[in-house]
């Protein structure tokens, strides 16, 4: 549809301004209240349980994470973000697919978590969860924006995707987890490009977090294959 791609810059693909973009999160938090509070509390509870040694199976975590992807894909990506960015209406399919994959692989027992006691994997997972739960909401304040524009796990896509990276770090580097890495890579890549087109430093943050999460998954499970059922 567009001729001469080389003459276009990243900014040329941006359809909205920063104010409109950040206000999406404020409106979503407001409309979905107290979902943000519930997901935040649930996330913190999950982390606390994991720290105390709880090792839930993929059969439980997979469908749960899948539901959150479906919810965020429909509620935020399609309904909230879609009206200002027609690309994301199509991209919501990414969330539905990932949601179904997480649920399907989880229920079928193919999403295998905590296969070894590798400390590094758990540490990487904890860091990624901490970023998703605590750092992402604080980015608004670091950026000088109103706290209402905070991006919260289970409401906003980016922290939801980063939390999923934290989950995948605990999975062996085999095909089910590899497939589940595709949607996070695509979404965080597009999100980072969008932020960079708005001259927002969070774009570099997003890219860094994805790179760290993906590298951790590549590196850690390779050394800890462990027994497979």
């Amino acid at each position: 549809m567009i001729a001469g791609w080389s003459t276009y810059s990243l900014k040329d693909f941006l359809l909205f301004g920063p104010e409109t973009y950040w206000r999406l999160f404020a409106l979503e938090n407001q409309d979905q209240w107290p979902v943000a509070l519930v997901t935040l509390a649930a996330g913190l509870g999950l982390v606390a349980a994991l720290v105390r040694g709880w090792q839930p199976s993929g059969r439980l975590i997979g469908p749960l994470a899948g539901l959150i992807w479906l919810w965020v894909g429909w509620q935020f990506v399609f309904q909230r973000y879609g009206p200002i960015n027609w690309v994301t209406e199509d991209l919501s399919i990414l969330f539905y697919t990932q949601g179904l994959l997480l649920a399907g692989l989880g229920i079928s027992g193919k999403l295998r978590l905590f296969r070894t006691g590798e400390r590094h994997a758990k540490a990487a997972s904890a860091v990624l969860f901490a970023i998703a739960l605590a750092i992402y909401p604080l980015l608004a304040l670091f950026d000088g924006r109103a706290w209402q524009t905070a991006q919260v796990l289970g409401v906003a896509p980016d922290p939801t995707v980063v939390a999923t990276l934290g989950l995948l770090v605990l999975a062996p580097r085999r095909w089910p987890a590899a497939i589940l890495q595709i949607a996070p890579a695509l979404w965080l890549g597009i999100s980072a490009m969008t932020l960079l087109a708005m001259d927002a430093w969070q774009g570099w943050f997003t890219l860094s977090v994805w790179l760290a999460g993906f590298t951790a998954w590549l590196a850690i499970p390779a050394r800890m294959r462990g027994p497979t059922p």
Partner: protein
Amino acid sequence: MRLTRRGFMKGAGAVAGTVAAGTLPSVSVATPPLAKPIPSSGELLPAVGLGSWITFNVGNDPVLRKQCTAVMRVFFERGGGMIDSSPMYGSSQEVIGDGWQKLGRPSGLFSTDKVWTSAGAHGPEQIAETEALWGVSRFDLMQVHNLVNWQAHLETLFAMKAEGRLRYVGITTSHGRQHREFEQVMRRYPLDFVQLTYNIVDRAVEQRLLPLAAERRIAVICNRPFRRGELPDRFQGEKLPSWAAEIGVETWPAFLLKFIVSHPAVTVAIPATRQVEHLRENKAAEFGPVPDEAMRQRMAGYVRSL
């Protein structure tokens, strides 16, 4: 909605300054507000319109929608004119339609939109959807966006014009792209309008496209008059030259817009904003003396020196 000479003068509360394309006098003309004729009809169009790229794409945000409506209110209070959008601009079309309805469908709207689909057969359907979003029964001007499948869409648009379902037909480009193909279409078809990028630093169209538009009696719409806000931001800390007062300019936006709309071949500039104050500054460019060629060169030279 047709903007007649009588209607415009009444709405503006002043005698419109008619500056015929291609016949701009070498001395200043001080008859505000500035309106320029569409060469194919002689109909007058206020020289400063309203774009909607990015600024009006606010989705369902009620606060930002109110800002858009407020900008439209002041736009119509100041004589109205061209409001331009595209199916590519996200929710902008819907936001314009919503604002116009909320304001009670004021007169003075020169509704302008685009067809933007690679499938020629989908063009009529997209145009019908766009009419519904705006709440208009027909558009004043419909353009082929960025020459996307222009062969099929121009056929549709000229047929609609012949049937009275459209008043004017045009094509668009931006960022200085596709000028060779653009020129070929301008030479081959009886276009009423072309839309292109022209501002005080992006002046490539002065070489061929603007003279061709004047020769072919095609009205010219200038997009990116501020390079998406970059130019006012860049010059914000700089003082306007003392001689800016000679052309009735008090702000950088008015300075930049006045340079554009004073070109003899240019009909209208379409800066986009969601700020009422910026809209006022933009519309101020319609008032005061119109720079002559010597003054325009002086303006461009001053900007180059900064």
